Structure formats: C-alpha cells, structure tokens
C-alpha cells in the first residue's frame, strides 16, 4: 500500500473513461443524449416531417405519380364534403370517447388514489392493467361478439325484458343501426373500453400527488368536502386528467382498427390514411390527413393551457 492521499491513475480502459467523464460532465451528458437525440431527431421527427411535406405535393390524376411541386391543392381537398365528414366524425367520436372515459375514470382513480391502501391498491392496478396484457385485436373481436345481434347484450336485454330499450337506442337516427356491433354506439363503447386505462392511470397519479395536508388545510379553514374538492383537489389534479385526455383523444383520432371491425362502414381518419396510402396510392392526401390530428392536438393543448389546466404544474 502506498501512503499517498491520491491513488495512482491505474490502468484499465474503463477506469480511464471514468476519470475522463469525471472531469468533463458535459461530454458525458452529450454521450448520454446522443442516441435518443439521433432517434428522436432524425428517425422520428425527420421521417414525420418528410411525410408531412408530402401534404404540400399533389398527385397526377392519370399517371398516379406524385408531382413534387409545392401546392395547397391537396390540403384544400380536405375540405371536400366527403373528406371533411371523415374529419368531423373522427373528432366528434374522439371528443365523446374522451368525455365518457373521463367520467368513468375519475371516480375510479379517486378511490384508488385517496382510499385504496396496500392490497386494494395492488388489486386496482391489476384491474386497470389486466386488459392491456391481452391482444388488442382479440379484445376488439370479443366486443364484436358481445355487441352482435345474437350477442350477450341483446340476450341479457331479452332476459330482463329490456329489448324495447335496446331497440329504442338502435332506432336513434344516425347513431343507431341494425345492431350495436354495426352502429356508432358500438364503436364508441369499444373505444371507451380500450382507452380507459390510459385515462385512469394519469388521473390516479395526479390525484395521489395532491398533498393530504392541503385537503386538511381546506377543511380546517371551513371548506366542506364539496368545496375542498372544487377549489383544491380538482384544480391540482386537473393536469393528470388532461394528460389522460391527450391519450384517449389522440389514440381515438389515429385508430383505424376499431371502426373497421365494430361500427357502421363510415370512415375515420386512420382508415382514410390507411386506404389512401395503400390501395389508392395517394400519399399526398394521406399526408394531408395526417396533419389534421396534429393540428387538432395542438389546438386542444393551447385551449387547455389558456384555461389554466397546467397552472398547478
């Protein structure tokens, strides 16, 4: 053993790398971030931009070749009644799904965050996550059977002598149809089911982060449980609900499998993109459709920010 205070710079490649990193923390940060930056910057954002750029090209109607000259004509096509219908239908469905998911998720998340402890909390997580462990397609097809004319729901309705109610529901103009599995109601139910965990988890996390002593403080100052919820818990947990709604909203905007399996044959954004870039080979219009959900999310987030949804962050 030497009696030096500072040990010798011993050999070994890793030891020397460690010493080098110790002296240059910034270089270390760059090393750490380089791979994800490359991935996000080049592979992800880059290809996304390349795709979006196509929205400003057009397609030659006869040859089907892409004309690489900047034009707004493809974007303008989005406002054709047929195309605009697709956008409107998708946005309304996404909004309805988000609102319904929020209404169902909130009490569930509230219970889990404020009351469930130990074993009950574990059970909550399992219940929420369990559906995510099975295949998405299997779930959607199961729902098709559940919602079908001879499916469980109509069987239960018959047993409960509620067939009239189901029929009345299906007789709703536009939203109804011959059976739940081929109506807007069906698509809606399956969407809500599929995306619900993505609403529950961030909401629950946000509610759990509301400090217990703020709730006590509100109560101490004379706030009834209702007032405490409105003035303290709700605003502080709102960012979580917004995060959840970003998931459910954007996932619904982009999904093309659920409406294909369950629902009327009306097109949604995802399906439009899918068909346009595939069978129709119209990449510019597909790209133009892709711009839509991005713009909508941008608008949605700006509104949420303006309404103060992120003030408590």
């Amino acid at each position: 053993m030497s009696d030096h205070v500072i040990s010798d710079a011993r050999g070994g490649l890793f030891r020397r790398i460690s010493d080098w990193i110790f002296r240059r923390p910034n270089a270390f940060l760059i090393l750490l971030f380089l791979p994800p930056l490359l991935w996000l910057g080049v592979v992800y954002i880059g290809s996304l931009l390349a795709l979006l750029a196509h929205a400003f090209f057009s397609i030659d109607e006869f040859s089907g070749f892409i004309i690489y000259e900047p034009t707004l004509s493809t974007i303008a096509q989005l406002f054709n009644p047929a195309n605009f219908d697709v956008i409107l239908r998708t946005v309304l469905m996404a909004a309805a799904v988000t609102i319904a998911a929020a209404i169902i998720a909130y009490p569930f998340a509230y219970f889990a965050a404020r009351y469930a402890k130990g074993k009950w909390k574990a059970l909550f997580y399992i219940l929420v996550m369990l559906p995510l462990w099975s295949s998405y397609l299997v779930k959607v097809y199961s729902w098709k059977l559940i919602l079908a004319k001879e499916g469980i729901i109509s069987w239960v309705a018959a047993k409960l002598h509620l067939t009239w109610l189901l029929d009345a529901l299906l007789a709703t103009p536009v939203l109804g149809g011959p059976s739940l599995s081929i109506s807007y109601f069906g698509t809606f139910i399956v969407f809500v089911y599929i995306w619900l965990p993505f609403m529950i988890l961030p909401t629950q996390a946000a509610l759990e982060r509301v400090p217990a002593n703020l709730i006590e403080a509100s109560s101490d100052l004379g706030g009834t449980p209702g007032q405490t919820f409105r003035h303290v818990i709700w605003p502080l947990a709102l960012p979580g609900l917004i995060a959840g709604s970003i998931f459910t909203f954007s996932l619904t905007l982009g999904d093309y499998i659920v409406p294909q399996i369950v629902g009327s044959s009306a097109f949604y954004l995802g399906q439009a993109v899918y068909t346009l870039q595939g069978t129709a080979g119209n990449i510019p219009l597909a790209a133009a459709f892709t711009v839509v959900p991005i713009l909508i999310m941008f608008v949605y987030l700006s509104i949420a920010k303006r309404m103060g949804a992120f003030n408590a962050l």
Partner: protein
Amino acid sequence: MFGRDFKMTLSNATVAVRFQDVSRHFGNVRAVDAVDLDIARGEFFAMLGPSGSGKTTCLRLIAGFEQPTSGHIEIFGETAEGVPPYRRAVNTVFQDYALFPHMNVLDNVAYGLMVKGVDRNQRLAKSEEALKLVALAGYGSRKPGQLSGGQRQRVALARALVNEPKVLLLDEPLGALDLKLREQMQVELKSLQRKLGITFIFVTHDQGEALSMADRVAIFNEGRIVQVGRPEDVYERPQTRFVADFVGSSNVLSPDFTKACGLGANWSSLRPEKIRVLSAKEKAARDVVSFPAQVTSVHYQGAITRINTRVKGDQVLSVSAPAAGLALGDKLTLAWPRSAMHVMGGEA
C-alpha cells in the same frame, strides 16, 4: 405537590379546550392515552414532548382531523367529538404551512372567508388587513412558491387568523426556519397573541421555544401528559425523571446520591447552572453540598462551557460554567446549595 390530574379548577366560562379522559388508539398504538387537560381562554399553551409522544395527535384532535377513540372533548363548552373540522371555529398553522400552490397569497388568505360565503370585496379587504398584520402587505399577488420560508410561515398565520378563530393551533410552526428567524418569530408570535387575545396552542419538541413563549406547558411522553405547569414550575420543579431530563438538561441524581447529600432516598434533579466549581482555598458554606469530582469531557459552547464530571461512584454531573481552562482528567471540587436540588416523587 400536584396530583396526576392536570385539570386546573377552571370554571366552564374560562375553559377554551377541555379533554376528559381522551384516548386515541391506532390499532395497538395508544397515541393518546387517557388525557385529562384544561386549557384556559386567552392562554398561550405549549405541548412539549419527543416525537411520537402524542402531542401532535392531541392537536389534531382539537382541529378535528382525528376523532377520539374514547373520552370527551369540549371547545368553548361545546362538545367537539364527531364534529368535522370545517364546523369548528379553530384554525391551524401547519408544520409545512400547507399553502395552496395554485392560488396567490391573497387568495390563500381569503380562502376561509371564500368558503364561508363572504362577498369578494369584503374578503379581499380583510385579507389585505391580515397580511398587514403579519407585515406582508403588498405580497398578495405572489405565488407561495415565490416566498421564503419565513414569509410562507406568515402567510399561513394570516390565513388562519383572518377567520378570527377561537383557538389557534400551531404545529411545530417554527420548525422549518433557521435559528435567527426562529427567534424573531418567537417574539412576534408572542406579541401577536397578546394583542389578539386568542387562545394559542402550539406543539413543539423544542423545549427552549416552549419555555420562552408559553404561559403554561404540558410535557408529553408515550401518549400521556406527565406534567403541566408554568415554564418555571416545569423547569425548576420537574415531577419525574423524564421531565427533568427532557426539559433543559438536568442532572438526575440517584436515590443513593440524594441521600448522601442529606436529603431523602429519592430521585432528585439538579440544574447544571446551579453547580459551582470551588477554588482550592474556598470552603463550602453551610447548606452547601460539595463533592470532589473528575472531569470526563469538556464542551466549549461560547458563553458557557459544559463540563461533564464523575462524582462519587457512578454519579455523573454536568456543570455549566464560564470558560474555566479545565482539561480532561482534572480533579476539582463541585458545590451547590442543597435547596437547588429538587426531590422528585417516588416514581421514576
């Protein structure tokens, strides 16, 4: 001597908070165990004890965050058990202030008035006034995150006081402040309490804070109150070894040693500052006990030096004396008036 019953004989009209045989159990843990206590109106009352001694649970019982497992609590003569916190004219200054992070300072202070339905102009005016009271006028538009610890403490105080509570509860209110600020806030709290005449009940584990601010102090240990009294009672005449040890740092003298000093064979306490180091020529006066001792450690503390010594057998004595140039192993003679020794009850 006092009995074990710490109810002062207060008439109902002067009691702010009354505990009658109150217990609060969490499973097998008796956080508060059969406590009897009267706190007078307008009193500055301190609950002192180590952590886990039940003092904070007592405070939470008064605030209404906890309900007693058994027993009876009265606040200003009205039954409090079963009453939720939002129906009590009692407000709390929380240990970590618990300011609402999404509201500015003024809205924080106005919160209590807002939920009670006081109209906007009136509640904002009153809140401004409360901020002035704690010397924070003009800070209303800031967010709590932009304030220092001491300022947040004042906001918490203003937020509680604006409701004109009958009883103000303070849970380790100065715990998070640095020494200088803490001393300043002690003075301010005390003068504020005198000015407003509100009953202040505050919880602390800092005996210096309790002794300097409170009119009366209750010492908690293991869910029970072991002594209640004025600061000088508790400091000069501790009733148990625990109190002697916890309040200040008394020498606890064994029954044998007490007897050797010419008193009864009981545990007794002796404050370090009552002990003098005798010079070689000095003779002990009458009624003064003196013993040879050997220095076991010396701790310089600025104004005084604490000297730990070993006397007769295993008895250890600490002495507070002005810096004396003593070193480890030095032999010396210690002396103190017999009257400075306080003999405690039979129990430990």
